[in-house]
């Protein structure tokens, strides 16, 4: 990034980051997720710095980007949640074999598809509402690595679900 772009980004960040967190909170009702969404908006701004610089209203641009991050966050969570719920709703004979116990819960159902760590990651993100950043810091991995692991786990579940519907 050019020095002048880096300077613009930092100035905007220091002046408006908290305002964007509050803006994201309006849509997410969660301060941790709102903070993450505002960070992601600046991540996008960094990659689209030329668009941001050319914008007549950089603050408006950042706000709109934040809104779209919020929308994408919510849609991603909904898709993951629907996948979990859909799998849990499968008829008993279509569920993974280890889920037959009456007391079976999500963990029992999904650990035949996922490794225990994958299940734990997905549960923390989808059901417990933790953020990638929180989880990554806890696990000592990068946020992007954490995101990839969750993505992989989701994909496994999706394939399992698709197979069960064939």
């Amino acid at each position, binding site marked *: 990034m050019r020095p002048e772009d880096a300077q613009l980004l*930092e100035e905007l*960040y*220091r002046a408006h*980051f*908290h*305002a964007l*967190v*509050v*803006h994201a*909170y*309006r*849509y*997410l*009702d969660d*301060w941790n997720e709102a*903070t*993450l969404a505002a*960070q*992601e908006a*600046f*991540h*996008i701004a*960094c*990659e*689209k710095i030329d668009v941001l610089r050319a914008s007549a209203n950089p603050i408006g641009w950042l706000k*709109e*980007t934040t*809104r*779209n*991050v*919020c*929308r*994408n*966050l*919510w*849609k*991603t969570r*909904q898709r993951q949640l*629907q996948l979990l719920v859909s799998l849990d709703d499968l008829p008993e004979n279509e569920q993974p074999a280890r889920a037959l116990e009456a007391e079976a819960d999500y963990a029992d159902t999904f650990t035949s598809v996922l490794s225990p760590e994958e299940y734990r990651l997905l549960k923390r993100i989808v059901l417990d509402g933790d953020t*990638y*950043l929180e989880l*990554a810091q806890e696990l000592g991995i*990068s*946020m*992007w*690595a954490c*995101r990839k692991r969750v993505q992989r786990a989701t994909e496994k579940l999706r394939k399992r679900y698709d197979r069960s519907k064939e």
Partner: protein
Amino acid sequence: MVRGDSPCHTEYPQLLRLETQKLEELLTSLDGTEEEGFAEALEAALLQRKAESLSDIDQSWDILQKEFLTEEGVGQRLFDGEDHSHASRLRPRWRRTVRRALLAAAAVLAVFAGIIAADAAGLELFSRLGHWTQSTFSFSAPTEPVASIDAALQETLQQLRMDGLSGAAFLLDGYQLRDISQVHSDTYARICFFYSDSQGNSYNFRAAVHSEPAQPATLYEKDGAGVEIYETNGKRYYLFSNLGRNVAAWSDGACELSLSGDLDWNTIKGLLDQLG
């Protein structure tokens, strides 16, 4: 930092007297139909209140550098989807179930121009007239105070067969009722049913009542395009769009009602026709 000329200081100073939790409740209870200036004032008031408890800006900047702006993150997005889209407006309050919030008496006062000359012949006498400008729409204020906002809201919901909270009267094939939100104060009550499908399309039905005469319950934002008046079954509906979402608004006297979302006009009119 919130400046002294921000809207929470100049236009809605009463917001600064609310507790932080009330500000949070109010902000997250907005459903996108309020005046944007009010939303901005709320955000500014909350920002001022939370300034000290939000994350340290130096630490946040450091996290951005170390976690987001890394080689691994180049070209990546934390959540799938477009960075920018003008296709639809976000609807706040996605995830919460019923929540009570203090209503800002602030609910917005504006000067309306363009009052339509209404011909009420053949229409219900209790309907109130719609008023609109280039960017807002509202109903004329009720002339009589509402004796009981709860009773008025309940009566309206019963007439629409929505009192069982199943939301069935407005449920379209392929959609599910996702959320019901309620806002209640001494002078205002509102209930909103949120529907969505598996593709992320959504719409909502909302009913609101204000007990004070001369105070409209809702100020709707709208695009610059005009307002279509649609009459069916002796009722008058006002149709307009706002940021890509279509809105039908009507009044049954005490209550103001609306249906809005990612629905085309034929679908909306079909639903209105069924109301009888």
